């Protein structure tokens, strides 16, 4: 069984897709890291129960 030699165009396309995949993967990791930092900061807080109910009643 023989495999055809990949065309230069396919190599370029593969490089582009692999690069984009790495960039998107890095972006996901970065956003996850940012989220961890933001929720760990002292000023971060969940809405109070009362506020949550008020907004719930408004609906």
């Amino acid at each position: 069984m023989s495999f055809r030699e990949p065309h230069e165009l396919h190599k370029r396309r593969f490089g582009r897709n692999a690069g984009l995949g790495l960039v998107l993967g890095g972006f996901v990791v970065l956003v996850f890291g940012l989220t961890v930092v933001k929720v760990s900061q002292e000023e971060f807080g969940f809405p109070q129960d009362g506020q949550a109910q008020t907004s719930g009643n408004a609906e």
Partner: protein
Amino acid sequence: MSDASINANETQTGEAGFGDYFALLKPRVMSLVVFTALVGLLAAPTPVHPIVGFAAILFIAVGGGASGALNMWWDADIDRIMKRTQGRPIPAGKITEGEAFGFGMTLAAMSVIMLALAANFVAAGLLAFTIFFYVVIYSMWLKRWTPQNIVIGGAAGAFPPMIGWAVATGGVSVESVLMFALIFMWTPPHFWALALFMKSDYEKAGVPMLTVTHGRRATRVYILIYTLLLAPLAIGAAFTGIGGPIYLAVAVALNAAFLKGAWDIWRRDEVQAEADNYKTEKKVFALSLFYLFGHFTAILIESILTPYGWGGWS
């Protein structure tokens, strides 16, 4: 630019490599953006979490890259004419103008939104304004209209340290404006020194550069004037929150050398310059790169030493 000229010149490929898209971001300009933004961020009196700082610098770099891509989209017609820019992805036929526009706009919007989420709205607003300034004010308006294009357009390159400072503090202050002013005043003599020895084909492309519109003698005079204005500003910054004895020593030495270089350029004429193949002009251009790097490194050193009681004047 007529529709006919677009159709005649545009090359449809749609199969650019990853490196071609990266080249659209003007990586060399991006390195200056990253360095000065990082110094602005670290010199600020408010500490920033390392991950937030890293993300902010990354989004500032992406925003800078986006404006580079949009600049290449707009200037594709003159990039095809000038030898220096003929190898760029659009004139080389690797990326179409539409792709570059879409790529630039997407990255511009994403970088501003992400900077707002990672840092604050002031930093994001400054980044958005920087992109607008570089693409609309400089590329679309000033570049082909006035020989002072590089003077006013230089502001776009001066914003990154101000954005870095805003990431940390959430605002603008005298120190961040001084860092802006340092790059703003440095850009003209730096660029004109290059314009004197780079036999560029701006004239053919219809871009009014000072060397063409006002002549080389006037350019030499302008270099000296801007260097004279730059020196007190650069040295004066030593006595603000970002300065200190180390910065002062570096600024005095670098400004003395830069002033000497500008003086030497002013004293020469074209015959002398041609005779030694623009040796002085090339030396001053190289010095100008070291000048900016030296000032911002000194600011960085002062800020790193401050927590140990050695930085600044305290």
